[in-house]
């Protein structure tokens, strides 16, 4: 087994591997800083709404489907773990193990979206959308909780779908046989995926554990 990761494929302006690696990780982390600020803005909205009417917020939060939320959290945690396994397998050129781990991540990710879709269906059947006529609450806090819930989970789901596309791209690169030399692309993809996971780890208590 080779000690160092396989010799990487160099892209345009870079001549040395470590410079290109530093650039890709640094560039991606700059993008992750924008993601932190983007989601941070929504959490600021959450903080203002919750402090404005804590009682109503808790009443609204109580109706969130804790079981499905918890299942999703476990799914996403596991997908982070499997993607880390995949990335390390790619670096160690364990192609078969990498392929299995990537597929596992894709399955876990799609499962998350499926459970989310099912949860949306449940929520809608209980009229838990602020503008739906049968919305059970009048408290300001509850209205704002549910508008925040739909907004943030939809945006997180969009980010997750984009993440799934990039992870699937790794599988495509593996089929082309260039995944080994392009292990940097794999590393950068996992960084993005882990941030989407961290955002959900923070979202889970804020949406599902309040008002219990």
């Amino acid at each position, binding site marked *: 087994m080779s000690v160092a990761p396989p010799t990487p494929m160099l892209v345009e302006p870079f001549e040395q591997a470590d410079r290109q*690696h530093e650039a890709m990780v640094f560039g991606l982390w700059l993008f992750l*800083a924008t993601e932190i600020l983007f989601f941070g803005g929504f959490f600021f909205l959450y903080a*203002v709404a919750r402090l404005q009417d804590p009682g109503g917020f808790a009443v609204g939060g109580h109706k969130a489907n804790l079981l499905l939320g*918890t299942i999703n959290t476990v799914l996403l945690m596991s997908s982070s773990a499997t993607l880390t396994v995949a990335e390390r397998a790619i670096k160690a050129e*364990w192609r078969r193990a990498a392929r299995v781990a990537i597929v596992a991540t894709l399955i876990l990710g799609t499962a998350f979206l499926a459970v989310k879709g099912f949860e949306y269906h449940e929520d809608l059947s209980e009229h838990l959308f602020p503008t739906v006529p049968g919305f059970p609450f009048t408290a300001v806090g509850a209205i704002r909780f549910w508008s925040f819930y739909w907004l943030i989970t939809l945006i997180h789901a969009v980010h997750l779908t984009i993440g799934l596309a990039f992870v699937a791209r790794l599988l495509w690169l593996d089929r082309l046989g260039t995944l080994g030399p392009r292990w940097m692309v794999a590393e950068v993809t996992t960084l993005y995926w882990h941030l989407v996971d961290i955002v959900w*780890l923070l979202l889970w208590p804020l949406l599902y554990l309040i008002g219990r």
Partner: protein
Amino acid sequence: MAEDRPPDARTIVLKPLLVWAALFGLGAISLGYALVPGAPLKPLLSLAIVLVQASLVLGAFMKLGKASALVRMTALIGVVWLSFLFLMAFADLATR
């Protein structure tokens, strides 16, 4: 970026699973504590647990600790600039 020891099954598969177990455990604690009726400071504790989980993911999965100073600074700056938004906006919202 050579690993310090030759990569074998331990570092590739076992370590991530251990980290996963830690994340799962922390999540269980957070859930358990939240379901105890009347327990004090629930939001605080759940946020503290999220902080630990996040640093686990950052450290073990994303290897932020081993990244260059530049990359760690970038991650820090994202959070510091977010605190600007919170601090200055709440300077208005809290004192109105």
